[in-house]
């Protein structure tokens, strides 16, 4: 059901982290596994907001730690 939004999230993660899309897995940690530093984290949030038309609040942003967190957040945020 959420395949399309998942795919967009993987694409964005690949672009921001500079990695191959195929190597990105839901269980990976953004900072530890994908080396998303503080500037890249802000870039990721802005890119998600911009390209997927979602709004990510301060506290929600602070809770996004893994690829799965991002996938689930975007799925929940997308209008049904």
């Amino acid at each position, binding site marked *: 059901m959420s395949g399309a939004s998942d795919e967009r999230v993987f694409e964005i993660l690949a672009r921001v982290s500079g990695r191959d899309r195929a190597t990105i897995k839901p269980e990976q940690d953004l*900072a530890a596994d994908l*080396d998303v*530093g503080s*500037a890249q984290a802000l870039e990721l*949030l802005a890119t998600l*907001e*911009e390209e997927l038309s979602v709004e990510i609040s301060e*506290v929600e942003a*602070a809770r996004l730690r893994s690829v799965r967190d991002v996938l689930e957040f975007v799925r929940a945020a997308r209008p049904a």
Partner: protein
Amino acid sequence: MTDSTTTALPRTLGELVDALAAGSGALAVYDRRGKTKVERPYPEVARRARAWGAWLEAQGVRPGDLVYLCLPTSHELIEGFLGASLVGALPCCLALPRAIGGLDVFRRRVEQLARFGRGHLVTTPEVGAELGAPFLAPPDPLDLERLVDVPRLDPGAIAYVQLTSGSTSVPKAVAITHANLAANTAAIYTRGAGSPAETYVSWLPLYHDMGLVGILFTAMFHGCSLALMTPETFVGTPRRWFEAMTDVRKDHTIVTSAPNFGYQWAVDRIPAEKVAGLDLSRWRVACCGAEMVRPATLEEFAARFRPAGFDPGALIPCYGMAEATLAVTMSPAARGPVVVDGSVSCGPAVDGLEVTIRPVDGAPERARAGLADLPESGPGGGGSPGEVGERSRRTHHTEDSDETLPEGTEGEIVIRGSSVFPGYFLDPEATAAVLHDGLFRTGDLGYLRGGELHVTGRVKDLIILDGANVAPHELEWLAQAHVDLDGGRAAAFSVEHRRREVPVLVVEVKEVPPPEAVEALRAAVARDVAPLHDLVFVRRGTVPKTSSGKVQRGQVRARYLDGTLEGVLWRWAQATAEGGEA
């Protein structure tokens, strides 16, 4: 001077609110996407500040209380800040959880504030609820019928408190007086050759002194307009900063400030083909400070944005810190960066401040002994590998703290004057360690050349190789030049090996660079500085940094020595530490 219409500059935040009430400028704040802005004329900002004062008073805020404002860059943050000062409280901007490494760090930070006495936290309902501590949510709507009177404030009194993220986890609270603020904003404006027909366009956070003083108050104290966006907007979509400049009314020129990071980020993220359509021809002042200014960044930036009309003469390298309110030195307006021997001049001291270079005390015994063995200056200091003697300026190490060093000699940067802070808030011990008779020891290293300051590093980070000093960034910039860091950072430091200090470089990378690049880096370091003792590539994001993103070299060194560096991808320890490469 001549008559009452020649308005004097405000001397306090109270007088600032009066000046805004009669002023013609405006404060615009962009939404989080950086696309639409809400603009309020200054008289409205002044009125709302007074309404905030009344509201804060009604919430129990009393003179002398701290008012911590933890809000995104917004009208509320600025009006709340001014409102707090109108009721005699001390405003203090706090970074949002996202900016300081998450909710746990934020909770600890808020707990630490208890030591500053009675305080009130103003934050969003969302952040406040998460915190589990008492907080005030901004009034919505703000009652514009209940206004506090603008009080006559004492210029010598503390106006606000600025937290600085040092290398330790407990921030220091810098107290700044109204007189400090008035003096420094006037000095910044004067050196930048400012005029009221200007708009300051900025994404700098207001919890940082460069954003608060260099942008917000320098503009407001002089009746200039403001267009602000959040740091997230710029970092996420750097082009928004330039679009906002393009959007400034055509009869205004543009003033900005940013750390070196901002200019580099713009170059890295905005390709040449995306520069088209921007109009940067009215960009008159582009200050660059708050961290070491890298000459290559300024060159790349100027080249990239020249097609949009950017004038490289607008770049003003500067040097400052919260303890000086903000600016200590600034390169003159319209001159452009001046680079001497690979080091950017940060210009002469601004009005009201005096900069001297003093001997570094407490330097390691070995360093002093090493220096005594070597000629005072001149190339090829005895036994130094490569060109160290030629490249490095000798640092003077002595216990005589009254001595000032002559031009060209590196030492600790010491300042005094009208914008030097009166002390750390409620921390006489920390104050006494750095402030004596109005002289503030910055802990930074530098030298004067032609009366202009060149900053070379931190006293505590200094690498001393065979009695000659090397600033860590010299090695770190070589790493940046030879391997693809892609936003990663490097840390250089020295360790003791066979009774000598030897350099080590830890570099964050996405993947281990190809052997040719590694070899080129090693060769460059050996040629320009000294043979590396060790080179370690670690995964991006694993080098410890402060909340403002500065690499904590001491921490990296400690972990290297303990063998607890995280994310190690590749390590090369030189087989023959001495002489092998020379």
